[in-house]
């Protein structure tokens, strides 16, 4: 399962909190990677900030719940929310079954295009996330 979840789209960018970013001009679409949603498990609730909200990189832009766990959604990009996926909010399962397409979360108009340089490309993310998984497994098994 872990091998599959790390097979990510080549033309997206990624952040260390397992979000993907698809850039179109000065607007980005944001979602959770397959590995990110896999860590959460079966997603029961999703709550996203409204369009028009100004968000700063690393800040909370929503909440997500699976198996009695409430997680925080953090934006990988600073800007203004210009769209959110109402369909996924109504049916959070989309994030589980189609994380890179219909399970997207937010559309953000970027304030600082320079922030994109701080994100990982697909190859770097796959390597980084793979190392994270190994480190986590070792940490757990050695305990």
């Amino acid at each position, binding site marked *: 399962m872990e091998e599959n979840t790390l097979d990510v789209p080549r033309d997206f960018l990624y952040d260390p909190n397992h979000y993907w970013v698809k850039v179109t001009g000065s607007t980005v679409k944001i979602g959770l990677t397959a590995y990110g949603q896999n*860590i959460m498990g079966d997603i029961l609730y999703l709550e996203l900030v409204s369009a028009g909200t100004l968000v700063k990189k690393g800040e909370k832009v929503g909440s997500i*719940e699976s198996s009695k766990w409430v997680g*925080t959604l953090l934006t990988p990009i600073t800007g203004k929310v210009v769209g959110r996926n109402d369909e996924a909010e*109504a049916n959070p399962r989309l994030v589980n079954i189609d994380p890179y397409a219909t399970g997207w979360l937010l559309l953000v108009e970027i304030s600082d295009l320079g922030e994109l340089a701080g994100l990982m490309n697909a190859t770097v993310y796959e390597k980084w996330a793979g190392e994270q998984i190994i480190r986590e497994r070792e940490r*757990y098994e050695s305990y």
Partner: protein
Amino acid sequence: MKAIKPTWRLLDTGPRSAAYNMAADKVILTARSKDQVANTLRFLEFSPPSALVGYHQAVELEVNEAYCRQQGIEINRRITGGGSIYLDEGQLGWEIFVHRETPGIPQNLEDMYRRICEGAVAGLARLGVKAQFRPKNDIEVNGRKISGSGGAEFENAILYHGTLLTDFDVDTMIKCLKLPIHKLDDKPVQSFKKRVICLREILGDLPPLTVIKRSLMEGFMESFQIRLDPGDLNRDEIMSLEKELPYFRSQEWIRGMRPKFQNSTLQVADHKTKGGLIRVSVLTDPSRHRIKSAFITGDFFAYPERSILDLEAALKDSSSHPADLFKTVTQFFAGREIRIPGIEPDDFYQAISLGVTQASRSKE
């Protein structure tokens, strides 16, 4: 040479209002995320009695508000996930606040739940109670739930908590919460009571609370290889708590979750089989295509008896899409040695499916 065990803080905040306990959860979690406090084990008690909904739940869908008002039961909302619960002096809350990188805490949620609950299970063993973890989030004794649990995260810190049933008032819980049973019928109520168990019922006499807490402390110390240092909230935490309390008492917090995409429908479905009648009370959310909980009774015989309770646990919060439901039921039976004369797994699927379909129709 023996390795020095890490020291966690032990907090015992005593009987408090729901708002205090919920605000304290946020304050301690925030303080832990900023490295202002050590990993912490807290015991919490509720006075007056309280009905709590999960972070994403809507009070009006989960709680019988008129009954709570009449009985002086406080209503509040947790910062953690999961379903509604009733808390009075018959429960002891336990919770841990740890950094994500704490040794032995897995990233994967299911592994994490199991790992943390092992501490409480080890504590119960010290009281002579043979308990075990039951996915997704329960601790059970012979199939009957003795502790539910749930969690939340904030930056690099996590909060995971559970409630241990010590001497439980099931009748009030049934009246206070919107559960998948028709409360005026005695038989389902009696059957529902068999789904949970408390320390008094297992041990005959209830040990003093200090003994129960000591056992849980020892369980967590053993399980996480730690020492516990009794302490208090620090000055910053107390100040933050005073600041947060008005908000956690406000309707803005308690009713902050708008039920835009939520619903709650109770349906009872009967399915006749060669082995007897299967009656399924199913609480669904047709908007989100979820089975919130299911309660299965009937005049059939299941061996082992607990298998029906385990099936109910597997159905909790599961998808109600027909293909998913079929998968949940078949996978459940595929992994277990269960004998129910005259009844096939498909009969359970048919019974539950009927309840789900009726619920969807009643919504339309």
